[in-house]
């Protein structure tokens, strides 16, 4: 990383000069409650990280949208990532820059990583057929490639499809979503975005606002089909965006992944151009290279802001000192009053947040209970009808039961995601009214602050704003529609195990009816269990979300208390100060200011 000359010098002095560090720490104050780092430490941290920062680009989408094919086409010259018609990838695969392209590292949940050299063996871990439901407990796999796109620390991640997540890899998947710098989301032309996809996108929208949507074009799809499909997909995304009340711009690119892959494998540039891949590669190149520029910019801006704040604060203090102790004290009194006013207002907002949480928590609980009840009734009716058609036992019944449960869950989860998103938006609106104080002493609402500030320096931000609910919902969604290793199958096994083979002839009609009744009675328990577990896990998600927001509100209160305390200390210090000491402090401040202003590179 090379900063501009002036900035570079400035950074050097920041990192090395004890005096600078001391002034900054004294003037800009305490550690940040969120990161627990001081201003300087934050800056140092960023500087250090920017040298080996990685730019994560996970590829998301429902299974069968061609994620692995797309990555093969983009980066590989062979089918390194296994591709099949249906769900293939069961563990995350990271592709990062490296010269040693024939070494693959398999990381496990519970044991030391293993390195393999034969690409063919990768399948044993990645492919769902050889590692069903990720029974080998692979946490992620690293693949290396010396592709120009991967320079600058860009890491692509092939993720299991939404809907084929297992309990064990859902957490890793969410980690990637959490730390993504940008994302690629694969869509299809037909069918257009499904409910499941929509639920998922909705629940992670706050992260996906940086996503590049790619619509995979199949060969048989005509140009007008593609265009119509694209228009529709954009409409759906706009609807999701509006539900999230943001105004992110949305674009969908069309790429014929199959053709792109063929072009890549046969080294046929024309095919790559036709498929739309070449354009996208160019776009990615410029996006990822400007990313590193942006990182640099951010650090430069962070420094500029820090210097500006320090100078503002020093000048302000000098002005007060020049008034003499008495007037100085009066001024501090006035400022304290202002602060108390703001804190009062903030406390009112915090109380509204608390009220909202209390009301909404029980509202959402009620809603979920209702939905689950409906779902349970639907499931009962479904099973009653299926059993009546003489599917009374065996694999068929087991399977039907599982699928009916999945369908019921999808509906319920969608309701759940929507109500949490709405709650989140309400909370954000309230939080935006909170007033925060910038280092130079002025107040602004959080909303204005986050709008005008070109970067969000973690400092003054109360962490009530980092509402994590969306991700919790996403986790749950993935889990619910995943291969149900746990509670779903447990219920099925009971029923499936009870009965023998199929009786179908007319003479045994009476038996048949008895059998139907028996099956239905047996189904009662697993249906009840399913509903209960579904309800419990959803309610827990809501409660976790609510308590995390409550905790955030507490933090804000704590911070305010600390501010008041500090303000009071300052007053007392001025009130009882000896005049000699007072003048000495003034001189010190003036000296500090001169020193800071003398540093090179200050604008």
């Amino acid at each position, binding site marked *: 990383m090379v900063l501009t000359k002036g900035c570079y010098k400035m950074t050097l002095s920041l990192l090395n000069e004890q005096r600078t560090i001391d002034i900054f720490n004294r003037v800009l104050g305490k550690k940040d409650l969120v990161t627990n780092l001081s201003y300087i430490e934050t800056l140092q941290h960023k500087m250090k990280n920017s040298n080996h920062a990685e730019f994560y680009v996970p590829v998301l989408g429902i299974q069968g949208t061609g994620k692995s094919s797309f990555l093969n086409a983009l980066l590989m010259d062979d089918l390194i990532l296994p591709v099949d018609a249906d769900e293939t990838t069961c563990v995350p695969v990271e592709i990062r820059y490296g010269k040693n392209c024939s070494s693959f590292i398999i990381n496990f949940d519970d044991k030391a990583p293993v390195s393999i050299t034969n690409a063919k063996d990768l399948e044993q871990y990645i492919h769902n057929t050889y590692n069903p439901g990720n029974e080998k407990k692979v946490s992620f796999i690293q693949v290396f490639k010396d592709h120009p796109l991967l320079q600058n620390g860009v890491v692509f991640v092939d993720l299991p499809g939404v809907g084929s997540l297992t309990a064990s890899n859902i957490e890793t998947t969410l980690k990637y979503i959490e730390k993504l710098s940008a994302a690629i989301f694969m869509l299809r032309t037909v069918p257009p975005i499904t409910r499941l996809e929509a639920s998922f996108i909705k629940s992670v929208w706050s992260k996906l606002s940086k996503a590049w949507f790619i619509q995979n074009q199949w060969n048989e799809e005509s140009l007008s089909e593609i265009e119509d499909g694209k228009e529709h997909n954009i409409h759906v995304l706009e609807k999701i965006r509006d539900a999230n009340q943001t105004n992110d711009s949305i674009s969908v690119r069309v790429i014929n992944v199959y053709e792109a892959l063929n072009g890549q494998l046969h080294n046929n540039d024309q095919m790559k151009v036709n498929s739309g891949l070449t354009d996208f590669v160019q776009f990615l190149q410029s996006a990822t290279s400007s990313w590193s520029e942006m990182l640099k910019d951010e650090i430069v801006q962070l420094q500029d802001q820090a210097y500006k704040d320090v100078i503002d604060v020093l000048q302000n203090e000098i002005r007060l000192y020049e008034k003499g102790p008495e007037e100085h004290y009066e001024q501090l009194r006035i400022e304290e009053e202002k602060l108390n006013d703001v804190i009062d207002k903030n406390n009112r907002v915090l109380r509204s947040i608390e009220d909202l949480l209390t009301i909404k928590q029980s509202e959402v609980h009620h809603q979920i209970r209702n939905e689950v009840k409906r779902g349970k009734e639907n499931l*009962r009716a479904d099973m009653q009808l299926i059993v*009546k*058609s003489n*599917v009374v036992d065996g694999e*068929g019944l087991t*399977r*039907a039961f599982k699928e009916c449960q999945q*369908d019921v869950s999808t509906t319920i989860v969608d309701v759940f995601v929507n109500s949490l998103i709405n709650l989140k938006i309400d909370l954000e609106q309230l939080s935006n009214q909170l007033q925060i104080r910038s280092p130079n002493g002025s107040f602004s609402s959080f909303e204005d602050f986050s709008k005008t500030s070109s970067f969000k320096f973690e400092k003054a931000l109360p962490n009530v704003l980092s509402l994590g609910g969306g991700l919790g919902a996403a986790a749950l969604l993935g889990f619910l529609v995943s291969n149900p290793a746990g509670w779903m199958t447990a219920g099925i096994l009971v029923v499936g195990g009870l009965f023998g083979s*199929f009786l179908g002839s007319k003479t045994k009609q009476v038996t048949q009816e008895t059998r139907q009744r028996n099956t239905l009675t047996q189904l009662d328990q697993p249906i009840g269990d399913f509903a209960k577990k579904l309800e419990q896990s959803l309610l827990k998600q809501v409660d976790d979300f609510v308590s995390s927001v409550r905790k955030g509100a507490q933090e804000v209160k704590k911070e305010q208390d600390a501010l008041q305390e500090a303000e009071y200390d300052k007053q007392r210090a001025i009130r009882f100060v000896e005049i000699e000491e007072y003048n000495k402090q003034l001189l010190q401040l003036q000296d500090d200011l001169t020193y800071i202003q003398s540093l090179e590179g200050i604008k």
Partner: protein
Amino acid sequence: MNLQHSMEKIKPIISKVGSEEIQSTFNLLKERIDYPESFVTLLGETSSGKSSLVNGLLGQPVLHVSSKPTTGTVVELYEYDVETNITPYALLKNAKLRRLSPEAFLQETIQPSEDVMRVRLNIPKMPHGLQGMRLFDTPGYGSIHKEHEEVLKEFIPNSDVIIYVVNYRVGIGENDAEFLQFIERFLEDDINFFLVINRAPSHVIANDVRIKEIVNLAQNLLHSDIKYFIVPSIYGDGIKLPKANDLWSAVRDEVQSDQRKKHVGEVLKGYQIQLLQQACIPLQKQLTLMKISDEEIALLQQTIKELSEKKVKANALINQTFERLNRQVPQLFNKAKENMDNFITDEIMESNKWTSSQECVGLIQAHLLPRQERIQRESITDFLEVELNQLNRQLEELVNEAIIDFQTKIESIGSQFDSIVGNITKHVLQKTTDGALKTFLSTYGGRGGAGAGVANLAKKSLKKVGEVFGKKFSRNTHNGLASFLKRIGATSTRNITIAVSIIIEGVFYVIEANIWQGRLIKEVKKGTNQWVQNTSSFVIEDLKKLKQINYENMNDYFDSFINIINTEDYNPESEVQINELEKHISEIEALILDIKNGCVVV
């Protein structure tokens, strides 16, 4: 002031306006107020015994009953005290009535002629104190497709009470289940649901296992506790007239409940207000024209021209969207069929060739095909929902912008337009918010007249009238859209059931282990093919209608403003004085206020 009383006051005001259209609307409304009605619909599978129940109600075998499916059309029981005997009519598609001989009546019930919409029995007096009840006996779900359509579209959403009849021995089958699921979506719109378990052995009581099973399943499907009635079988060969006294009293209590009466009263009151506002418009037009100068008219015409341009734009938008949908819908359906076929073929091929033919067929019939249908259909209805909502949003923006612009410009021409613009806005808002008064009244016809459809007053509620004043345009097509999507759902499910029966028939006798799979796949494809054809053509057909409705609403809206000063209404020779007009208008306004503030006495 009660409703009749208000009508008396409205009468002279309306006749003074001298508009034929407004006068006829008034007459229809008056009739509705003088003769309150309720709508009760009998539904249920073929041969569940609906017609017997009707005979039981009337105490004589008016409807033909046999063990074979008998009713091929909707039969309406209509109370008409002018006649002394039960008299059958055919209600024709051209909205006329044709008196039927007993033979013709039988013939029309079983196999209606081309021009017949439904059959009506005029009943001098409804038994069980069921005054004003219009009862509709519908053909079984298992019969003709076309009738099924009308039942879904007209009868279910507009009923006060639905009586669903299930045969005790048959229980709730798949057809019933679908039907009930469809009904469930309407239940919250205050439709009452009664389940009748018909032809129960005489010893059967409420805690009979079968009764419990039937009621449980119905409750699971409807997601609510339901009232149910057990009607015992009548043994022997004679004429069967089941007495379902409990049922009919319950129906009476429901349709004549104070709550329902009050609701209907509120709705009618809303219509009275709307009628008066409508009557005001021509007067205001005339008044405005008398007051403004030629220059102002010229300015106005320029503004109207600009508005007309926006109308063209709105129409183009509608056209464009529907054209695209017409392209996409068949593609989506074809893809859906392909997905279904592939999925089920895989399933069949994977099952054990030697042992699982029976189970495989059962699973396809009861689970795999219906589920696939649902998944594929939902993706199509979701698609349509997004697209049509998008259109709605765009139109809303366009119209609001156009109208605000229009109003601002009009205001700058002169203040004499204020009241007329205000009134037109109000009028149009009501029309778009809750269905037009005129359409409402003319669709379901007057007493003794040949109504073309049914409509429940309560459904055409105008309770929101108060809220829309002063608000800008917001097209309430949402309900239209919702019912459009519901109907696609019902139709598609219905079609897959037909497909399933085709499959079952096709493979029933094939037990040879080596060929059943191939045969089954072939039959499935045949079935899904039929599904895709019927459903897709239904959707396309409905899209056409929806497009038409969109055009009409949109143009109606624009035209109300474009015709703001329609010189045809203006008679310069008229001797009416300005002050007379003003007096008339303020009379109407005072009456509106009066009615609005008065509470409804039923």
